């Protein structure tokens, strides 16, 4: 039987590779924030209170372009919509927890923590403290993110052209690492191929809305493949 502490530490430990992936990302965010005209305090406050890497990136870009605050908030909403899919996925596992647990877990629900924690929740054991695993993962992500954003802000104007080094490659590479464990049967392969194709076809959509459309098409394709597979199996058995 796992204790709270064991779950917490395991969550933090299994998030370690993703901390590495977030580090260049945090550095560039800090560097970009400095050049965007955002104050250091605001850039740090954004990391501390919003805690959403890709939305922060886009926000900093919009600040540099002198976009109105309302547009920045709306863009954040759309870019982060995918997180609602994550909370839907976690719902069956978290619904018995009190709100005092659901609030911090929701605040820390990043792509990375979701990808790590969902594997733990799906594992078939009777641990009652799997939410501590998620908590360990999100706290590790949170502290790591604050640290690298801070260093990015401090070093940002001293490193010439930090954003031109291609450090942004860390994000897709990390996501590929997170993706692979989910691809383990034919319906998920169909899901990935469909979502990937649609993501390229919907690039013209504003505010990265294509991500949401592509995700829904992929989910639908996976579901249909699974149902068709079941039907064929039944027919073979009959």
């Amino acid at each position, binding site marked *: 039987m796992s204790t709270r502490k064991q779950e917490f530490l395991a969550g933090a430990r299994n998030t370690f590779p993703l901390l590495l992936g977030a580090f260049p990302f945090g550095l560039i965010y800090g560097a970009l924030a400095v050049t965007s005209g955002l104050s250091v305090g605001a850039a740090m406050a954004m990391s501390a209170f919003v805690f959403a890497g890709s939305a922060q990136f886009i926000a900093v870009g919009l600040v540099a372009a002198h976009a109105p605050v309302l547009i920045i908030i709306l863009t954040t909403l759309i870019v982060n919509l995918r997180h609602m899919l994550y909370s839907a996925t976690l719902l069956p596992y978290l619904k018995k927890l009190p709100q005092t647990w659901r609030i911090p877990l*929701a605040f820390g629900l990043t792509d990375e923590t979701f990808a790590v924690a969902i594997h733990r929740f799906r594992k078939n054991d009777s641990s009652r403290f799997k939410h501590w695993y998620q908590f360990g993962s999100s706290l590790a992500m949170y502290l790591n993110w604050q640290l690298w954003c801070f260093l990015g802000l401090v070093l940002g104007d001293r490193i010439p052209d930090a954003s031109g080094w291609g450090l942004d490659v860390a994000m897709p590479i990390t996501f*590929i690492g997170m993706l692979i464990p989910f691809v383990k049967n034919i319906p998920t392969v169909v899901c990935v191929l469909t979502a990937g194709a649609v993501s390229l076809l919907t690039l013209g959509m504003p505010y990265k809305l294509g991500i949401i459309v592509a995700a829904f098409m992929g989910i639908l394709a996976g579901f249909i493949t699974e149902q068709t597979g079941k039907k064929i199996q039944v027919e073979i058995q009959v």
Partner: protein
Amino acid sequence: MTANEWLMILGMMGVTFGIRYFLLALADRIRMPSPVEVSLQYIPPAVLIAITLPAVILPHGEWHFSFTNPYLVAAVIAAGCGLLTKNLLATIACGLAAFFAYQILLSS
């Protein structure tokens, strides 16, 4: 920090937390129809690929589907490494190393 910056950050925090918390807040009152529940398993791979693929094929906003695109080459190597090792740290390390090595190779 200016008032405008506070407004922006509070607004961004509100929408981000709202999106992440909304369903969880109502968790005990939501009953999912079974097709929806079955479909939940496809959410992570679908979202991850939809973010990743455009990021490596159009790293700077323009279509760049070729061997001279280090993002794409590194992604393919990372994927190969991930499928072989099934290890997250190895996948990330491999992809990053491939990216920087390939960039040096291209510029020489």
